[in-house]
């Protein structure tokens, strides 16, 4: 289109750069301008949705560019809107002043992708630009055909349910989109209603594209069908196949969907060629929260061999039907041809476009019977409209569905939802939800594994305490008690140690194992020391009662220091072992999410404090023992000296 027409926004002249102009003109052509330059509201709405801006922003854009006032998108308004959207995407406020300067081109997620697909052979510096070039060339034959399109909605705006009951299952899905489509058209006339309607639908979408860009990417792919279909000659085989996939829309499974179904199938049954038993499938599909009656119907449709189990193609069919149903598509009475297992398996490019066109023709004829004023409608144009109609209309119905589904689904949705493409734009939220929903059962949410480490840390600390107490008790036995309890105290630590060993296999964190093993190493070292201590202490056992005899004393004295040495060693060993352990636990806890981290740290702190207390007590006792021993030593030495002179003389 021309640069001068970019002026329209509120009278302010907006200059477009070359790239902008190319892009905008292409997009303009994409939106099916009619003879007077007005754009198809449906296409504009889709384009706006593809910009991934929030509904509020789009509303503002429409207002500022003047389309709201006029009630339609003329060339100027459209260009203004595009610039405003570019500004919004760049983060600027939606104002006329924002677009005065140079801005990057607005990004339309679906549009660029589809254009890429359509013109894969064209080198693209800027995706939209070159795409626009191609689309511009192709759009020439379209505008005349657009006229009847616009006129049709004018007349049938009020007759949303005007389609006669579908003669074939394939037609029933498109029926709904047609009703939706007339919404924007009619609203366009009123001016305000469109935006309201459009906004109502938009909120569903922006959330979804943010979650996952491929759905909108996929959904917008349907848009180019119109220009593509008319330009059959120039369409490549690949594009055609994509067309075919999309134009038969609700009942055809795309590649991404198939991959998703494959993943789901594998989660239920690792072997792709095996069957999923009925009960398994029932539990799985019941999670989609569809009424049992509908699930039962879906099952009957998809289990073609009636064996009570689902093969992989049957599973795909069933899943696809559930997804479609979740998005508001009424269930067909019989299985659509595209969902038959035989067809489903042949997912290669060999899908005959003639088949598609044949089905499209069927739809068209039924359509024509119903719609008035569709004179001289290009047969190939109809399918083009069907697809966008099909897309938008379920959107209107599923918005309610989605709103009701969304409360349920988020809880069911699993965090690890894979990127899923949606067959159509409306499906953005609901299919995501449906998918997530179905996904969630197979993959339970990851369980917090803190307990393991915490438990193990507790155990080890307890162990340490016990061993500490055991050594403490050994001190007591030295002073008064005859029974030496080191072996018993040592025993309790051991079972917990074994428990920890069992924890390790149970633990899901490898880091945990790593942490525990060094602790085990430390602990085993500690235990070794303890045994040596015990050995030393056992000899002490014999000696404490015989403190009176000098021999014993002498024997005791060397042993005492030995024990003392060993014990402090063990004591010193345990703190080091404790500290690395606590450090490890601490480090581990730092890795945890903050609330658990705090708790863990507090636990560790508590444990450390306890061990500290034990250690200090031990220390004080040992010091006292040391003093006692010193005194004894002094007395002994003095006696020795007394005796020696006597002996020498």
């Amino acid at each position, binding site marked *: 289109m021309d640069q001068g027409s970019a002026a329209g926004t509120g009278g302010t002249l907006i200059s477009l750069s070359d790239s902008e102009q190319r892009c905008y003109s292409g997009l303009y052509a994409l939106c099916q301008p009619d003879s007077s330059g007005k754009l198809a509201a449906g296409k504009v709405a889709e384009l706006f949705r593809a910009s991934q801006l929030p509904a509020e922003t789009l509303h503002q854009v429409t207002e500022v560019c003047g389309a709201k006032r006029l009630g339609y998108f003329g060339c100027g308004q459209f260009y203004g809107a595009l610039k405003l959207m570019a500004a919004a995407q760049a983060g600027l406020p939606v104002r006329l002043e924002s677009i005065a300067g140079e801005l990057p081109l607005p990004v339309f997620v679906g549009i660029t992708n589809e254009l890429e697909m359509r013109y894969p052979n064209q080198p693209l510096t800027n995706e939209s630009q070159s795409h626009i070039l191609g689309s511009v060339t192709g759009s020439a034959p379209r505008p005349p055909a657009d006229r009847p399109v616009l006129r049709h909605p004018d007349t049938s705006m009020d007759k949303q349910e005007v389609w006669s009951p579908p003669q074939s299952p394939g037609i029933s899905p498109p029926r709904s989109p047609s009703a939706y489509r007339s919404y924007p058209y009619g609203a366009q006339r009123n001016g305000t209603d469109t935006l309201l309607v459009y906004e109502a639908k938009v909120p569903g979408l922006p959330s979804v594209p943010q979650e996952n860009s491929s759905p909108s990417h996929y959904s917008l792919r349907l848009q180019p069908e119109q220009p593509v279909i008319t330009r059959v000659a120039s369409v490549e085989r690949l594009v055609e196949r994509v067309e075919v996939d999309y134009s038969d829309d609700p009942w055809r499974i795309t590649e991404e969907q198939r991959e998703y179904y494959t993943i789901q199938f594998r989660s239920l049954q690792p072997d792709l060629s095996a069957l999923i038993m*009925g009960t398994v499938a*029932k539990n799985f599909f019941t999670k989609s929260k569809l009424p049992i009656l509908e699930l039962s119907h879906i099952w009957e449709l998809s289990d073609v061999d009636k064996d009570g189990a689902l093969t992989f193609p049957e599973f795909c069919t069933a899943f696809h039907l559930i997804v479609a149903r979740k998005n508001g598509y009424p269930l067909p009475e019989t299985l659509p041809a595209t969902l038959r297992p035989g067809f489903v398996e042949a997912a290669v490019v060999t899908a005959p476009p003639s088949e598609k066109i044949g089905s499209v023709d069927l739809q068209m004829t039924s359509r024509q019977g119903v719609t008035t004023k569709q004179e001289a409608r290009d047969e190939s144009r109809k399918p083009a409209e069907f697809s966008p109609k099909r897309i938008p209309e379920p959107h209107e119905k599923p918005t309610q569905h989605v709103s009701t589904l969304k409360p349920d689904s988020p809880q069911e949705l699993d965090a690890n939802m894979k990127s899923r493409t949606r067959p159509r734009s409306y499906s953005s939220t609901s299919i995501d939800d449906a998918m997530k929903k179905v996904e969630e059962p197979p993959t339970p949410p990851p369980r917090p594994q803190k307990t393991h480490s915490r438990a193990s840390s507790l155990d080890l600390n307890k162990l340490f305490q016990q061993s500490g107490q055991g050594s403490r008790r050994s001190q007591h036995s030295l002073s008064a008690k005859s029974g030496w309890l080191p072996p018993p105290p040592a025993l309790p630590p051991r079972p917990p140690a074994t428990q920890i060993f069992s924890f390790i296999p149970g633990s899901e964190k490898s880091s945990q194992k790593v942490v525990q093993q060094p602790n085990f190493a430390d602990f085993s070292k500690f235990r070794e020391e303890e045994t040596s201590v015990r050995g030393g202490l056992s000899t002490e056992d014999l000696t404490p009662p015989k403190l009176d005899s000098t021999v014993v004393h002498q024997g005791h004295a060397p042993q005492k220091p030995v024990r003392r040495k060993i014990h402090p060693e063990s004591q010193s060993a345990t703190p080091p072992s404790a500290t690395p352990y606590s450090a490890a636990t601490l480090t581990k806890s730092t890795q945890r999410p903050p609330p658990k981290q705090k708790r863990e740290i507090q636990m560790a702190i508590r444990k450390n404090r306890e061990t500290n207390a034990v250690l200090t007590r031990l220390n004080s006792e040992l010091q006292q023992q040391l003093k006692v021993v010193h005194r004894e030593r002094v007395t002994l030495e003095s006696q020795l000296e007394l005796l020696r002179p006597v002996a020498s003389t």
Partner: protein
Amino acid sequence: MQTAIMIVANYPLYIRSVPTQGELKFHYTVHTSLDVVEEKISGVGKALADQRELYLGLLYPTEDYKVYGYMTNSKVKFVIVVDSSNTSLRDNEIRSMFRKLHNSFTDVMCNPFYNPGDPIQSKAFDSIVSTMMVQAF
């Protein structure tokens, strides 16, 4: 001409009649015929999948209709009620109807979402039964 197809497992699982009014009469008929079925079963050793004809012209002279019975291995009884005026129906046709019914019934049973004992609400089953009734009667 009134015809009805009923599936009973000691309580009605499925009832379908061509003129949809007067179902109550068919309920009554089925109940009475159940007794006859039991009689026949106890009499004949263990002939499964028996197809029996119930008393032709048994009931009131005003409404003379034939009741055909069929029982599966799991004690599910199929009952077909046809007008006596419809003399064109041969026994073989009735047997084939019962066979089709039985096949469709097992298909319904195969559906994991169907709880045995629930009334059968499957649309596929309905359509099969309707076509069968239309064809036969």
